[in-house]
């Protein structure tokens, strides 16, 4: 297969060189000049040679295993296979591995009987695929080669293909998103056929049953998870990130000398590049125990070694650069004339910031904060490591709470039945999280956009 791939690419290269040489002989000057440069003719023919064959190979690679299996099943040796289930597919995959030569002996004797049939079918379809690919390559190349004439618009055609390639690239991301949303929706619907949406969205007790138990033996009230998520991501983390981020943005834009700013801002941005798992163990191993000891020493009961506060503070630190850079951008976007106007009235720099710059930059700052919240509530590693698993409905920041993301991890790790209510609950939680962050992002982007228009 790999050899065939290189063969097709090699043919494309040869076609490129030949076509280019031929086009180079067109010559001519002024209006008699060829429409496109020789290189474009080369690309045109080369692409016609390689592309259809490559696309065919891609399709063939997905279709041929099915054809091979069917051919094997049609042989008499396959007649005494078990009709359904795991054993049948285990035997088939062993036989395939034998035929490939990736294993020497099979565990199941029936596989040995099927192996020659497999080998035969693999060879047969391999030859068919090779011939078809080469035919396509030559046919495409020949068709394109006959079309190159001085007035042929090879350049336009190649440009069109470039555009198509760019379009495909951007569609990949969009289609992936659509696929993810579809899978979330599909699995959530299955979950809601077992557990009522009302209980899920408004229930206050969260104790998923073991995976071999029926859904009714547990409780799927997700309110404690939503509360934990909001408590950590939207309250504690923001209490840390908003003041610190905003003040650092004000310092950097209004007070810092260019030389100070030039080293301070990059370092602040490095904070955004620290892997979240590192923040996670920092929160779990350093911050959380210190906070517990502190809480115990001042006599707060219910202090746990995993606490909402530890996770929230570290998460807040993590998103400082995020808030700070959004605030930085929106403060910098306030016209200098506004600042001068205030200073010329005899306002001090801090009065100018409080009374003119911040109000004018507020929509941008709010947008940045909303984006930061949506990031914080989707954040996983820190809360998994530092927040705990107990689904508590508590406002005590020293107690352990759990979040949506933590529970998703919890529900999906370990041995799980894929169709149990417990596993499917993860998709429903994922869907809720997705909808919330999507709404936050939409609102935030609207606010930011509206604000930007105001100064143009």
């Amino acid at each position: 297969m790999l050899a065939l791939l290189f063969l097709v690419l090699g043919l494309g290269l040869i076609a490129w060189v030949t076509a280019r040489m031929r086009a180079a002989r067109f010559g001519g000057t002024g209006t008699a000049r060829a429409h496109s440069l020789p290189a474009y003719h080369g690309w045109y023919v080369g692409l016609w040679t390689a592309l259809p064959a490559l696309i065919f190979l891609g399709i063939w690679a997905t279709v041929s295993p099915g054809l091979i299996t069917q051919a094997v099943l049609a042989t008499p040796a396959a007649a005494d296979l078990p009709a359904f289930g795991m054993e049948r597919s285990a035997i088939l995959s062993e036989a395939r591995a034998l035929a490939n030569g990736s294993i020497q002996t099979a565990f199941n004797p029936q596989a040995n009987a099927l192996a020659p049939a497999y080998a035969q079918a693999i060879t047969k379809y391999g030859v068919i695929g090779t011939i078809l690919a080469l035919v396509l390559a030559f046919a495409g190349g020949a068709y394109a080669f006959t079309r190159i004439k001085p007035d042929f618009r090879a350049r336009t055609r190649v440009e069109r293909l470039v555009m198509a390639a760019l379009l495909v690239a951007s569609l990949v991301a969009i289609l992936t998103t659509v696929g993810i949303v579809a899978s979330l929706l599909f699995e959530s619907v299955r979950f809601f056929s077992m557990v009522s949406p009302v209980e899920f969205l408004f229930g206050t007790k969260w104790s998923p049953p073991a995976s071999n138990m029926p859904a009714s033996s547990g409780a799927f009230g997700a309110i404690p998870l939503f509360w934990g998520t909001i408590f950590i991501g939207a309250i504690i983390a923001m209490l840390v990130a908003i003041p610190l981020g905003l003040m650092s943005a004000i310092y950097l834009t209004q007070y810092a000398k260019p030389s100070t700013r030039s080293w301070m801002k990059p370092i602040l941005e490095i904070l955004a590049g620290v892997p979240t798992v590192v923040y996670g163990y920092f929160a779990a191993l350093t911050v959380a125990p210190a906070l517990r000891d502190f809480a115990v020493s001042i006599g707060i009961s219910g202090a746990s070694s995993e606490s909402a506060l530890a996770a929230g503070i570290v998460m807040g630190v993590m998103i400082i650069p995020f808030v700070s850079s959004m605030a930085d951008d929106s403060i910098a976007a306030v016209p200098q004339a506004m600042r001068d106007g205030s200073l010329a009235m005899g306002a001090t720099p801090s009065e100018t910031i409080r009374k003119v710059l911040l109000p004018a930059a507020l929509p941008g700052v709010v947008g940045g904060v909303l984006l930061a919240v949506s990031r914080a509530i989707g954040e996983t590693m820190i809360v998994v490591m530092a927040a705990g698993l107990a689904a508590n409905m508590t406002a005590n920041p020293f107690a352990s709470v759990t979040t949506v993301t933590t529970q998703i991890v919890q529900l999906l790790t370990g041995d799980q039945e894929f169709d149990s209510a417990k596993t499917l609950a993860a998709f429903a939680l994922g869907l809720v999280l997705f909808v919330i962050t999507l709404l936050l992002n939409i609102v935030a982007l609207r606010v930011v956009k509206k604000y930007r228009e105001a100064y143009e």
Partner: protein
Amino acid sequence: MEQMTEKSKMTARNVSVFYGDKRAIDNVSIDVDMENVTAFIGPSGCGKSTFLRTLNRMNDTVASARVEGEITLDGEDIYASSMDVVQLRARVGMVFQKPNPFPKSIYENVAYGPRIHGLASNKADMDVIVEQSLRKAGLWDEVKDRLSDSGTALSGGQQQRLCIARAIAVDPEVILMDEPCSALDPIATAKIEELIHELRGRYAIVIVTHNMQQAARVSQRTAFFHLGNLVEYGETSEIFTNPRQERTKDYITGRYG
């Protein structure tokens, strides 16, 4: 000369301004008094705006700017370390080239300065300051019914008069205007010029302008700047009808600039 300093509101002696190593203003001496409107004219980049901004130390906001020489307000050196720049700017107000009302209501725009300087002890006092300032700026009748509307929703000319009202509200002694009409249409320009006439005598007014007709219309004294030098300074009528310097004459007659 001594007598002139006596009644001068602001004096500049041998003032040079540098941006980094570049000399933007070279050894300028000038006096500004209460009775006369002083116009600074000259081609683009001649340093007239730079010099204007040294008079209330707005150049302090430019990190690379450096001022040499002496500038006084009522005989007090404004670059002395004892001078509070916040107080200085309350006494020497400024109106900018482009109207720059704050994104607040008309009322709040005018009340901004009095509020930060604590000029009004209660709402009634503030109402009086706002009304008087808007009246002096000739804007009261146009906006008295919509003081809570945003200042940025006014027309360009109204915005500029709002900025003048804002500057007047802190009761300054000097008002600096940096090409206040360059972003306005002729009708709005005429209103601002009329306003300058009315304000003359109550405040020492310095106006930078590109427009020589405007300088001739609104000012009694004119200073002609060229390449960072003060070429000629005197009675406006003298400068425009009988300039002593060849360069001034060339500029006035449109030979360059």
